[in-house]
């Protein structure tokens, strides 16, 4: 069916994917690295867009340098690098690739099927979507969206920026914005202020993580020095404006992030940045049939893996934030482990060598993980975050489905697929990436079930929209396609169809 074959196909050009591709290629394997954006680096190491030349790398900061060295290593390796390319489907040992150069017509970039012996999925994470009144107004941006504007396009989207969020980014990101010349008028952190105990815990967990501690202190100091009001235990309640955000209202919250009555305050702003942490982008993993567990601390639905980061599908590895949000350091370590694991599976390494090669990365991961756990108290996501939508708040923005319509439907079922069918929530171009967790939390609340017990909707390809001109293929079909596939390896014999 296809001549394009790789020993290891790595999906995602962020820290985990870069490290995995480099590690696998180091052992003589035929490797391809697929990245949907025009440049490598992923979200954290996002590179300036085409046409922007970096003349003074030193001025770009440590993060840029770290990203650059990972990218340089991957580019220097034997791995084939396919940017501007999306993986839109995975079926057994094949993946469907679509090039996405917007300057050429779709029909000139036909989808192609490539075979792999092992695939490493490193899809990364996206901003945790939070639906509150006004969240769809122009001028309300996710942290990731703001970051893309700034890192890739060098654009500040407004004069006055209010930033609301939780977790390490809630401090780091506004501090970065200040560095780019933004006027950050206030910063709201949903979590508690740091206590001396936290600093000690972090310090205890931090040998080797010292720079992270330094970063945290530096961010806080930057905000203080620039007199940016930094307020803990407050979240955004609503955003308002005529055609775009003009003011935001925030309020104090308790331990569960539930609003304390009578504490609302309103302030004018041009831009509201929202960053309540990240959730793993599990679409491709779920489509590949990998089983998931639920861990709110890691971002919710996370894929289950073994020591070598194999998922429950033996040919599918998973690494980085897409498997649980733990940051770029863990992602790099995991990418290496997965790359070495794939090399082990394919016989390019013996078990002892693989173990030895992976040991430093395992240590690095464990060290960073200890730090994450120590910080957990500050990062827990409160369930109140899902209670902000009012009845007329649009929850599914692709299909304009309101919270009220969803509530009425959820009265009748616990099954998110049924809610989707009756309301169209999750049927649009994003396939529920944005609204599905909110819908799941509504189901959990109405039926008094733990959020983790609410199964997500059936995963369906394509994980990104594909133009018919690129998808269509006159040459498929023929005789074999229409013969019933009784040899489906995934299904126990006898379960397939009746004997008729």
């Amino acid at each position, binding site marked *: 069916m296809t001549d394009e074959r790789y020993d290891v196909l790595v999906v995602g050009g962020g820290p985990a994917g870069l490290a995995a591709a480099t590690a696998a290629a180091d052992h003589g394997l035929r490797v391809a690295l697929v990245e949907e954006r025009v440049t490598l680096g992923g979200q954290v190491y996002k590179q300036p867009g085409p046409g922007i030349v970096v003349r003074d790398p030193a001025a770009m900061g440590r993060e840029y340098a770290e990203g650059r060295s990972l990218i340089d290593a991957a580019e220097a390796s034997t791995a084939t690098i396919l940017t501007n390319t999306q993986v839109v489907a995975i079926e057994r040992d094949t993946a469907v690739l679509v090039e996405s150069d917007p300057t050429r017509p779709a029909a000139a970039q036909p989808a192609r099927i490539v075979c792999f012996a092992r695939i490493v999925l490193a899809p990364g994470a996206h901003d945790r979507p939070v639906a509150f009144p006004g969240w769809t107004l122009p001028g309300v941006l996710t942290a990731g969206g703001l970051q893309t504007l700034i890192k890739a396009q060098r654009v500040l989207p407004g004069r006055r920026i209010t930033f609301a969020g939780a977790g390490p980014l809630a401090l780091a990101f506004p501090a970065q914005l200040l560095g780019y010349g933004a006027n950050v008028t206030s910063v709201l952190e949903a979590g508690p202020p740091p206590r001396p105990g936290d600093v000690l815990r972090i310090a205890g967990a931090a040998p080797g993580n010292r720079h992270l501690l330094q970063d945290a202190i530096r961010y806080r100091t930057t905000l203080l020095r620039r007199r940016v009001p930094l307020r803990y235990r407050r979240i955004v309640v609503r955003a308002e404006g005529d055609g775009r955000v003009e003011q935001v209202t925030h309020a104090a919250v308790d331990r569960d992030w539930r609003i304390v009555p009578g504490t609302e305050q309103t302030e004018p702003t041009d831009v509201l940045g929202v960053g309540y942490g990240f959730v793993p982008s599990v679409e491709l993993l779920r489509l590949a049939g990998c089983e998931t567990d639920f861990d709110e601390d890691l971002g919710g639905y996370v894929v289950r893996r073994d020591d070598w980061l194999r998922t429950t599908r033996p040919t599918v590895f998973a690494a980085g934030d897409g498997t649980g949000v733990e940051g770029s350091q863990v992602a790099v370590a995991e990418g290496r482990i997965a790359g070495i694991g794939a090399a082990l599976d394919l016989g390019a390494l013996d078990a002892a060598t693989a173990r030895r090669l992976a040991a430093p990365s395992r240590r690095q991961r464990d060290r960073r993980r200890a730090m994450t756990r120590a910080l957990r108290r500050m990062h827990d996501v409160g369930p109140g975050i899902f209670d902000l939508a009012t009845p007329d708040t649009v929850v599914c923005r692709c299909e304009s489905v309101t919270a009220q319509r969803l509530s009425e439907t959820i009265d009748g079922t616990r099954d998110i697929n049924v809610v989707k069918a009756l309301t169209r929530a999750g049927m649009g171009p994003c396939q529920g990436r944005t609204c599905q967790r909110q819908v799941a939390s509504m189901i959990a609340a109405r039926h008094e079930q733990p959020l983790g017990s609410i199964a997500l909707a059936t995963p369906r390809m394509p994980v990104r929209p594909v133009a018919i001109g690129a998808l269509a293929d006159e040459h*498929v079909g023929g005789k074999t396609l229409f013969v019933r*596939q009784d040899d489906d390896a995934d299904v126990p014999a006898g*379960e397939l169809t009746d004997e008729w």
Partner: protein
Amino acid sequence: MSGEDRLLPQWLRYEDTSGPLPARTDTLVIGGGIAGTSLAYYLAKGGVDVTMVDRGELNREASGTNAGSFHIQLAIHQLPAAGSPAGDVERLLQEARQNLAAYEVWNALDTELDIPLGVHLTGGWMVAETEQQLQVLHEKRELEQQAGIVTEVVTGAELRKRAPFLAPDLAGASYCPQEGHANPLIAAPAYALRAHEHGATIRTHVDVQEIEQRGDRAGGRFLVRTSAGEILADRIVNCAGAWAADQARLVGLKLPVRREGLHVNVTERRGRLMDPMVQHIGRRLTLKQSSDDTFIIGGGWPTPAAPPPRRYPTAWESAAGNTAVAVRVIPALADVRVVRTWSGVIVFTDDLSPVVGESQLVPGYHACVASTGFTLSPMLARRLAEQMLDRDGAEPFPPDHHLDRAAARTGS
């Protein structure tokens, strides 16, 4: 959001479908798709004590995963393998009349249930790429005329004028003004809601596992063991669609049905391009622009199987092949993006005739199962309910609908 959506009712509450099973019922309906919910509705409305169960949620299989089209013209899968309808006139005539009767039920259903079901009469084109296919269109038109279906064959400049969205180099197309669609996501839930209001007991997540036949003993002819306990019933109606054969086996019957996964593609919304449905007489294609302005592209492309509760996966090959036919027929689709695919498990009977009525081998055991069941089930269920209610003038089903036909043929 469409205007219709705003008028939708409050659906059944979870508490309405999750209570305990009654100890006994007159009629137990197995399956909560369009057949089961409509039968429960017609029986409950007629005063029957009816309990309807589904092993999962309502409307999750073929009834809710088909594209909602009403197929009135004879289609490729109905025609004999040779492609020409000449050899099979009687059966095709009967199917054509049946389609028409089914559509009449649909047309009155919004009013009957007082819920907007998105029933739209849009008309439908069936295109031919080759002269040979055009000949088939002419032949099938004669048959359709005999059955009372209005179709006309259109070619050349007139076709380009009336259907400018079609590729200009097609050999021709037949048009049937009686074709259309309804919203498959709402029809069965609407029936279930009204059935409940007429007193039917609706229970989801009840899997029927064993059926003990008790003859004429008091209490009920059947003792049914389910995942939610036992229930006694005098009559059973198997409305399990693609899984009807598995259910029938519980009473020792062999139903001539099998299941197949079918792939469907959905695009992003686009400006209004077309209202009629478009099918192909020689290749697998059913295409329409929904009332949400998305294009729904299917027509019988296969998907692999998976055992429940897993959903059948979709198949890239089917997506690629299906959309290739679509863009060949409607070139403007080339830059429209597919955002989603789904797979529906469809029932096929051995000879495409429905399996409906009461078994002679197991008295009290009924079935109501049909290929293209979305179009046919409301009509079949209504007729079956009339028979079960002993209504005067209830018309018996023709012999080839009989559910013992597979057993009769194998001599068992």
